[in-house]
């Protein structure tokens, strides 16, 4: 699934090991999470942390992109 970025500077960790540790409640300094480069408005992304997607859509930070099949 792909999503369009609707806010400037969207950034998040992409390493599954980091995401697992965060999901387990571990405190990891922001600078040590291997965050992706900030995305500008309009970028299409497909690597959002799965657990954050619903919240990001609800906050209006991303929207699903309809994939054209043809």
């Amino acid at each position, binding site marked *: 699934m792909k999503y369009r970025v609707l806010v*400037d500077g*969207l950034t*998040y960790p992409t390493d599954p090991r980091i995401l697992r540790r965060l999901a387990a409640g571990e405190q990891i*300094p*922001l600078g040590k999470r291997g965050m992706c480069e900030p995305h500008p408005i309009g970028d299409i992304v497909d690597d959002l942390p799965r*657990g954050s997607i619903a919240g990001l859509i609800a906050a209006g930070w991303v929207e699903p992109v309809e994939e054209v099949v043809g």
Partner: protein
Amino acid sequence: MTKYGSDQCSFFLVAGLDVVGTLTEFEDRREARTEETHTLGDAWAEHSFVGVREGEITQSGFYDDDAGSVHDVLSSGPGATNVLSYCLEGTATGKNFVGWAGGVQVNYHRIAERDALTKAKASYKGNGPIEQGKTLFPYKAVGSTGRKNTVDNLVSSTGGAGYLQYNASAGECNVRILHSSNDVAFADLIVFTKPASGHAGERITTTGSIKRYTAVDFTTASATGTIAALNAFVGLVRTSSAP
């Protein structure tokens, strides 16, 4: 009850320069303007708040003419308006700071006295809001670029102001405040004017939603080279809280 001592006064910033190391005392006084409202027939005086508040800071300490110290900051200052920030609660991220959107420097005194070190005093009057927020990056050297530790406000809120004070010797960089609702995915909240060689303070307001978690991000900007010897403070004031 938490008590704080003079050793925990961690910075007093005027236009990006920290003068706390020269001060022996400062007083931040805020007052509400009132008008007497008692009338004929009243046995006691009455006062009503007229809706206007004002603030004044007086500082006193040692006279020091080093570059970037108190004389450098204040000697040409009477009449100038600068962003002021100070912290009375130590150096940890997340501690409260006080920000003055604008402090008009009213005067500057040098005081020489027999058998005593020369002293310096100054005072400021407020030109805009005086507010309390959370320190996102206490005033210190920015040792490396990248995102700094998050501050958890427990709830999101609406509206606020970001404060940046910096002193840099060369180059240029980007400073942003990021926010997040889950401490995983972050987006820009406030983007400051690029700090470059020199010193300054900046306050930028925002009217939108501020998510629960906030952090600072320092990155290099290449127009005039990598920034060198950057000392900075970043703080965030939330004007209202919402669930």
